[in-house]
């Protein structure tokens, strides 16, 4: 065994020895540049952008529109990489601990990923005000300037804005529950048609339901409040557990991911699915994934609306080029195309009033949604995202008190 120890020690020595390579530049140094300087430095560089790649429409938008455009305008070679969430945070944190420049320049994030990336200090900024197009952003809008109760503060740039919706098959359900209060009675009358995905979208559903139970969205503003959470999550577990046998598969199991739930919905095994993007139903019917009878709506007393953002990585190797790309992504042209339900259907983050009349008109005349509710009708039903801790706790407790069936301790 001694012999085998030797190469092992050698590796350890090797591993600890490396790592004092070229240090990334200081953020202040990068951000001190003027825009023309940034533009000059960023031209003809490669940019690596990490994003979720599970939707062909989104990938097509990025590959066939954004990529050629940034190449044409700035000579930038945009490289798209698959990654998101905790995996992304761990990669960036590991790079930072090794003291090495990052392999990623731009990251598509929001909510808890933003929170975590700030915790490990992996974001470069504040950079948003540097972007010429930033003046067009609707930064007065609390659904855009605040990400899960965290002020964006220029550390991530808004990219799109979406609202949680119920999607149902109108051929199978004549009258879906119009509010969360009607939901239990509906479940009892239509057993086996409804379930809760045990992931991000499902947690947004639970948050909206919990806020509806409390009757007071104000309670969930600001920092995480243990007493508020205990009280209203307790009420939520109670109502879910009381009606558990009316869920899909008698509530003995729940889908682990949203995609299988969408497939169950498309196959007709359940009558409801959900989306964090209010226009997704159009997008999915256009792709012939959902039946043409699928419809989306927002139940009273409202659902969560949030924005998603673009972050600049602190150790980015091409921060200037990355800023050019982000600036392009929030340009009126790029935002307009992205908002078309036939392209992606992601709502713009621009303040339309700040746009020249012609451009504003182009936004207003976009091919409108056919199956999703119009934005104006659901804006009043929009709830802001609570502190990330609410989701973290709901995720943990949904598993404990519903999936595993541990009794809720009396508080």
């Amino acid at each position, binding site marked *: 065994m*001694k*012999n*085998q120890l*030797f*190469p*092992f020690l*050698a*590796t*350890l020595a090797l*591993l600890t020895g490396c790592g004092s390579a070229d240090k990334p530049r200081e953020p202040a140094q990068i951000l001190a540049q003027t825009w023309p300087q940034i533009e000059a430095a960023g031209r003809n560089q490669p940019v690596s952008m990490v994003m979720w790649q599970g939707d062909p429409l989104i990938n097509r938008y990025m590959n066939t529109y954004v990529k050629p455009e940034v190449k044409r305008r700035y000579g930038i070679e945009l490289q798209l990489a698959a990654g998101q*969430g*905790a*995996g992304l*945070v*761990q990669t960036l*944190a*590991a790079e930072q*601990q090794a003291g090495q420049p990052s392999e990623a320049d731009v990251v598509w994030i929001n909510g*808890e990923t933003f929170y*975590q990336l700030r*915790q*490990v200090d992996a974001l470069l900024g504040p950079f948003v005000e540097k972007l010429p197009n930033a003046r067009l952003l609707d930064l007065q809008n609390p659904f855009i300037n605040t990400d899960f109760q965290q002020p964006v503060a220029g550390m991530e740039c808004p990219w799109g804005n979406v609202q949680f919706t119920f999607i149902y098959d109108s051929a199978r359900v004549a009258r879906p529950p119009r509010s969360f209060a009607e939901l239990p009675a509906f479940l009892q009358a239509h057993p*086996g048609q409804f379930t809760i995905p*045990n992931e991000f979208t499902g947690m947004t559903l639970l948050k909206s339901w919990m806020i509806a139970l409390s009757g007071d969205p104000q309670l969930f503003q600001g920092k995480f409040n243990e007493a508020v959470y205990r009280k209203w999550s307790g009420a939520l577990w109670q109502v879910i557990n009381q009606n558990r046998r009316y869920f899909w*598969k008698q509530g*003995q*199991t*729940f889908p*682990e*991911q949203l995609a*299988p739930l969408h*497939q*169950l919905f498309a*196959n*007709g*095994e359940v009558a409801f699915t959900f989306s964090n993007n209010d226009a997704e139903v159009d997008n999915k019917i256009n792709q012939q994934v959902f039946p043409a009878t699928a419809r989306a709506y927002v139940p009273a007393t409202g659902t969560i609306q949030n924005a998603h953002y673009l972050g600049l990585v602190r150790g980015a190797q091409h921060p200037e080029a990355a800023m050019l790309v982000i600036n392009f992504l929030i340009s009126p042209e790029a935002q307009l195309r992205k908002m078309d339900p036939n392209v992606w259907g992601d709502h713009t983050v621009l303040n339309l009033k700040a746009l020249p009349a012609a451009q504003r008109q182009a936004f207003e005349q976009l091919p409108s949604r056919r199956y999703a509710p119009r934005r104006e009708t659901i804006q009043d039903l929009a709830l802001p995202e609570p502190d*990330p801790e609410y*989701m*973290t706790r709901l*995720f*943990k407790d949904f*598993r404990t008190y519903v*999936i*595993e069936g541990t009794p809720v301790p009396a508080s």
Partner: protein
Amino acid sequence: MLSKARPSRLPSPLLSLYGLLVVGLPLAGLAYALLGSVGLAGPLAAGFTGRYWQALGTDTGLLYAALFSGWVAVASVGISIALALLLVLRAQPTLRRWPLPGLLYVPLLLPALVVGFYLFQLLSRTGWLARLCFQLGLIQGPEGFPELVQDAAGLGIIGAQVLLTFPFFTLLFRAIYQESRLEEYRQLTLTLGASPGQFRRRVAGPLLLRRAAPTLLLSFMATLGAYDIPLLLGRPYPQMLSVYLATRLQRFDLRELPAAYLAGFLVALGLLGLVAVLLRLRRQTAVR
């Protein structure tokens, strides 16, 4: 420098390099997980704490995941071995007939995620089989179809693993059968008056199992650590080990990461222990 004096004791350069890769890197990873579990490594490491180790006693999730994975791995590797042995020992002539020699390679072409997706589309209550049953009048609606995926016993997962593993075992056994000249042994034992059944049970079966043991053990461990198939065909509770670990590693709460490292460390330790036990067992039973 002791070892330099006795160069004959040093492993060959090829072996040393190999050791560096397969021992060095995983051990380094394990050390990282251990340090992570006590708060000394990882993104939010804040200094030594025994908190996560102490909380271990109250967390039964890992134990359930280990038990469930054990059941799935034993069942699917067991069924696969039985099927493969049956094919190689009792249908050897058929295996040589067109199109089987090529056909057995086909399941190797299917990645686990594709098999999971395929079985979901085939076996769910609104899947293709259910549709055929409905058209044939066997069931009145999706509820009439048996629960074959996302079921409590993990039948869907086991089915998928068997589909992936048994053709590989069959190819493996057949290759060993050929290269060990078992056909000649068979002729010999038959001439000596043994029955074909005796040859299969006493000679061929044990020999194939013994020679294939390392690969069978590897398959067993791979099944224990399977991820894509249980993710698509399993339930959120009980989960298989990899799904459990991935859920913990990717939880929304970064502060839970040490607990995830701890779970990972324990799983790796458990698997190592299992390997040690199985290798010892094999050495004891091996007839040399």
